[in-house]
């Protein structure tokens, strides 16, 4: 009757939980001036949680708990490592932003870590119930984080929009999940996969559609995207970075688990929906990004479009022999996307400390007075656009490879769409670069070199190193993709 506990397998989850408790208790005792220590405890906890992930990876093999509802295998370890790294970099971005005279430091890290806890569980969840609980554990703290600046109506608005769409989407997703449960009689993804293979009911399509629509809200795929730009603009920028990377990838992991482990034998349940979502996100995300004047909104639409690129392999996965290369592509794309997007946001935060503005024009002349920042920012932008030798090209390459492996008319059309929108995307990324290098700084602007805090520098350096290293030597992440897809 007892569930078999494998403490090694759940060690990362336990460490993060213990860190949350420790930060909360520490926050009770530190006086106002000592509050920055909560950040140190939180960072240490995240780093400590990496250790069991490495030992588990060295150990290899698959560990199952709760009748196969919680699985630790290379697939989950790759994503857990990614989430911890993204959380660590997000914390580096937040240090000074949140530290600037903010009373509620401890709470910020408690909420951030709770969200990370949900992501760790999500990577291992192979059961509708635990996927739902993990998704909500990711989302609910981020609703609060989006509204962090309590007295700023913009931040309030970001929170309420994100919240309403979030709860609506979980209700829609749950309705779909309840139908899936009713039709298959199980919440375990492996048993669902067995049942949908033979089941032929129109209701099954509806159930799959509703479940995926719920996830589409979370990953802000068009036409479920309209909350994203407003929330990204209104929320504090470090939180936006966290939302656009960690929380979004959390949604993709949920989608990938459900589609790959659960729905895969019945491609009608997910393929047409995902094809539509991918095509719409690619076209609309890129076209609307073209006419944004605010860098955060531009990055919001860019992340919608990047989400479209990640959805392409999903939409072609069950055709031909594309399963393996699709999974590899999704894993590799999300990892690379995380590094380059966090890097771009780090630069936006660093510049906004000086200019107090998020307009694209505030980047004018950056190449003259802060060449270092301008160089890395250009690097992240060109990586997002997919220009070699930065990591983005490899992400796009794996995506096209998956589409070509599928080798069906639908997949080819989607690949063509992706190619066209990559070209469109190049223009708006290049526009920011042009602003930095070829425009003069505005009259009366402060053109002293920008001094950035140590933590922010560290975050930029980590992201830049990943973007260059993977761009030049893609085998680094290709191996991770192989491992994840082999599980």
């Amino acid at each position, binding site marked *: *009757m*007892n569930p078999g*506990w494998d403490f090694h397998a759940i060690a990362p989850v336990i460490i993060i*939980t213990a860190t949350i*408790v420790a930060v*909360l*208790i520490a926050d*009770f005792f530190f006086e106002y001036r000592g509050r920055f220590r909560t950040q140190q405890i939180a960072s240490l906890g995240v780093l400590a949680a990496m250790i069991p992930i490495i030992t588990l990876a060295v150990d290899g093999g698959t560990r199952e708990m709760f009748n196969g509802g919680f699985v630790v295998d290379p697939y989950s370890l790759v994503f857990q490592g990614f989430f911890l790294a993204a959380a660590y970099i997000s914390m580096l971005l937040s240090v000074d932003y949140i530290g600037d005279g903010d009373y509620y430091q401890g709470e910020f890290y408690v909420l951030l870590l709770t969200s990370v806890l949900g992501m760790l569980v999500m990577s291992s969840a192979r059961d509708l119930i635990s996927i739902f609980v993990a998704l909500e554990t990711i989302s609910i703290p981020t609703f609060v984080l989006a509204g962090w600046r309590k007295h700023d109506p913009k931040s309030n608005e970001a929170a309420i929009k994100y919240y309403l769409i979030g709860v609506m989407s979980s209700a829609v997703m749950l309705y779909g999940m309840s139908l899936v449960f009713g039709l298959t009689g199980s919440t375990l993804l492996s048993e669902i996969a067995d049942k949908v293979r033979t089941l032929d009911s129109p209701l099954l399509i509806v159930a799959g559609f509703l479940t995926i629509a719920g996830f589409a809200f979370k990953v802000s795929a068009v036409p479920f995207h309209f909350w994203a730009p407003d929330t990204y603009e209104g929320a504090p920028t470090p939180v936006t970075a966290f939302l656009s990377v960690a929380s979004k990838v959390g949604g993709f992991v949920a989608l990938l688990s459900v589609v790959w482990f659960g729905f895969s034998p019945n491609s009608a349940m997910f393929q047409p929906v995902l094809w539509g979502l991918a095509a719409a996100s690619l076209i609309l995300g890129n076209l609307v990004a073209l006419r944004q004047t605010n860098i955060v909104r531009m990055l919001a639409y860019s992340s919608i479009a990047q989400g479209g690129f990640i959805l392409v392999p999903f939409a072609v996965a069950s055709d031909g022999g594309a399963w393996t290369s699709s999974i590899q592509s999704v894993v590799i794309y999300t990892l690379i996307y995380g590094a380059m997007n966090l890097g771009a946001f780090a630069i936006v935060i660093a510049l906004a400390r000086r200019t107090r503005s998020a307009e694209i024009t505030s980047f004018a002349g950056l190449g003259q007075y802060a060449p270092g920042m301008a160089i890395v920012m250009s690097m992240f932008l060109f990586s997002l656009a997919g220009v070699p030798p930065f990591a983005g090209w490899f992400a796009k390459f794996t995506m096209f490879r998956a589409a070509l492996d599928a080798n069906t008319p639908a997949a080819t059309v989607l690949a063509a769409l992706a190619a066209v929108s990559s070209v469109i995307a190049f223009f708006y990324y290049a526009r920011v670069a042009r602003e930095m290098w070829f425009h003069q700084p505005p009259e009366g602007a402060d053109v002293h070199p920008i001094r950035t805090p140590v933590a922010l520098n560290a975050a930029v350096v980590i992201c830049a190193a990943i973007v260059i290293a993977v761009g030049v030597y893609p085998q680094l992440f290709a191996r991770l993709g192989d491992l994840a897809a082999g599980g």
Partner: protein
Amino acid sequence: MTDYYREYLAVAVLIGAGLAMVGGMLGLGKLIRPTRPQPQKYVTYEAGSDPVGGWGQSNVRYYVYALLFVMFDVEAVFIFPWAVRLETLGVQSLISMIVFIVILALGLVYAWRKGVLRWA
């Protein structure tokens, strides 16, 4: 009279005793308390403050208490099924539940430390 009905007699006695006790208490109170009717005493009771009429917004301060109550109330749904099966689940589940309740209680400690529980 069969045993079956005799057991119901006990129920009737219990109900009778209950009614008698409540009636006795209220009657006794009526007999010994002083009566001085005043108009203020017939005003609707609104947590001690003067009623404002219509249906006014309830005070924001109640919200925190309602929220804390709902949190703990709802978490109880996990404790009931656990309690029913505790004997078969053994010590390990007892430890799990203690961890669960301690983490929940931390939320209450948090509210207390932040002064939310003070009626200011």
